């Protein structure tokens, strides 16, 4: 168990407002070992970002309910007090968000922001010390140290995203969550950054969760993958297993809607239908209305079926009561 960085059990996130409840994440179970990189994929609205934000406890507390447990280095993120959480934040657990253009305050120099962030956990750090540390990180993400004294608007989107990544690494965290961190970039920059991230990871002994809607990002930069649909994890396993032989009909559909990386020309297909209304509770399989292999039994909730190599599939096709 020492190797487990994050262990998430029966994790639920519900948005609550005056008129309705939205069940954004339902019964999520997964764990990440040290050195793993887990890709969480799904279309927009599948609950993948919500799950990340809930794990980081960054959702507004008034309008969200979180249940279940998420043990991070032996501490339950769900129940931790704000004070204890602060000790973990950025030191052990950091995050990079999607919109690189908005991830830094526009009216402060990068230097100022980095100094303030570093001093949250090292209040006595000197400017020189911080500069030295950060310029080292800038090199890791292929940026010149000149960047340190600039304002965010003086950088391009790709450069800003690299700065955000460097900032997220400043305390050498155990776990890094990247929420669509490369989505807004062009393909070439995205590829470069992903390469750099994978390289750094080895150097810094880091574990990563990568949230994306792009299967190719998962294929190139992750070793595990969780496929989410409508707030549920449909399939979970090693990338080499899942991408080679997808089992859940939704994963199959998702794979068919992306061009093959190996260059084989196949017809791209989209999945018919729309995401279900998440403010309702469903009896049966949530994917059944869009599933081409749906059966009568799909009116009942499918069990999570465990297979070899830690793989799980939430589908009636692979056993359980028939």
């Amino acid at each position, binding site marked *: 168990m020492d190797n487990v960085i994050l262990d998430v059990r029966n994790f639920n996130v519900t948005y609550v407002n005056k008129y309705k409840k939205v069940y954004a994440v339902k019964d999520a179970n997964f764990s990440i070992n040290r050195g793993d990189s887990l890709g969480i994929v799904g279309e927009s609205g599948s609950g993948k970002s919500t799950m990340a934000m809930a794990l980081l406890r*960054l959702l507004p507390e008034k309008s969200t309910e979180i249940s279940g447990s998420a043990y991070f280095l032996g501490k339950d993120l769900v129940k931790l007090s704000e004070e204890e959480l602060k000790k973990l934040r*950025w030191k052990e657990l*950091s995050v990079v968000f999607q919109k690189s253009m908005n*991830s830094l*305050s526009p*009216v*402060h120099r990068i230097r100022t922001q980095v100094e303030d962030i570093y001093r949250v*956990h090292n209040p006595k750090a000197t400017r020189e010390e911080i500069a030295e540390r950060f310029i080292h990180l800038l090199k890791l993400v292929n940026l010149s140290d000149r960047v340190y004294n600039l304002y965010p608007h003086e950088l391009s989107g790709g450069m800003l995203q690299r700065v955000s990544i460097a*900032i997220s690494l400043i305390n050498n965290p155990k776990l890094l969550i990247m929420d669509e961190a490369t989505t807004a970039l062009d393909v070439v920059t995205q590829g470069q950054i992903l390469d750099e991230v994978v390289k750094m990871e080895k150097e810094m002994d880091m574990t990563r969760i990568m949230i994306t809607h792009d299967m190719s990002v998962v294929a190139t930069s992750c070793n595990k993958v969780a496929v989410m649909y409508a707030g549920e994890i449909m399939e979970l396993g090693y990338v080499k297993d899942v991408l080679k032989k997808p089992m859940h009909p939704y994963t199959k559909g998702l794979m068919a809607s992306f061009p093959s990386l190996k260059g084989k020309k196949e017809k791209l297909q989209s999945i018919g239908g729309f995401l279900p209304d998440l403010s309702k509770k469903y009896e049966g399989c949530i994917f059944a209305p869009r599933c081409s292999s749906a059966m009568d039994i799909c009116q009942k909730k499918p069990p999570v079926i465990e297979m070899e190599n830690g793989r799980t599939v939430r589908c009636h096709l692979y056993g359980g009561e028939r």
Partner: protein
Amino acid sequence: MKRYLFKRLLTGLLTIVIAFVINFLIINLAPGDPIKTLMGKESDDPVLRAALEEKYGLNKPLHIQFFSYLKTAMRGDLGISIIYNRPVADMIAEKLPATILLVLTSGVLSLIIGTAMGIVAARKEGTFIDVLFSGFSYILNSMPSFWLGLMLIIIFSTVLNILPTYGMTDARASYTGMAYVLDVIKHMILPVGTLVLIEIPMYYRIAKSSVLQVTNEDYILTLRATGMSEKKIFNKYIFRNAILPTVTIFGISLAYLITGVSLIETVFAWPGTGRLVLTAINQRDYPTLIGIYLIMSVSIAVVMIVVDIVYAILDPRIRY
């Protein structure tokens, strides 16, 4: 930065020129001949007429007329008031300090109070205090300033009898030194209070919406994820980003005050340019009215340029 400055100054200059053009057009298009307009309706002195005709070159083509008009005005010659038979520029210069005192005091006070209220409302969004402030600002926004001034007179003077309502000093006493200052302050409370109340909604709304918007920005979320204290996030990052639109509003508000103050000076008999406006209207003293309009346009253009420069200093994104 230099180029930006240059561009701003150019626009400011252009604004002043346009103000002159508009003035010139109004004088020329107004019913009756321009000389009559410049002399006032009741006066028809042939000597004065000849002098004005000579001065403005009225027998020459329109564009030449315009340039000679521009030239005299640029020299600070805004014409002669028919009623008082004095240079308009002198009369305005005499009344200006009292008006500036009123405008700046209420401008700064409303900035501080309105912005503070907006920040509080945004931090406590949805609570009683937010609803109270928002309702208050909505109603104030709908009030004619002069009417609010009259109502304050009824409350604080007629009913409570605690504040003076007329003028800038007590005419019966001749205070000096500190006592004089206190007397002026006492006379300022009602007019300044009225202007501040009228200006609060502008600052309140912009501060509230801008704090709310910045709070939802991604960089604030990132800072929360770093474990930085809420206090530091607010004081250094939210505040600094959210205050930017307020700078622009300060310029607009001062511009509004420069003209709006005339109404309030009328209500409280404040011895500033507003009084001059009122008498000029009543006496059909057009040179004075036109002169005041020019002075107002120029001061607003200057205020706007200053505000834009301050903004450029505060926001690093504007440094092209």
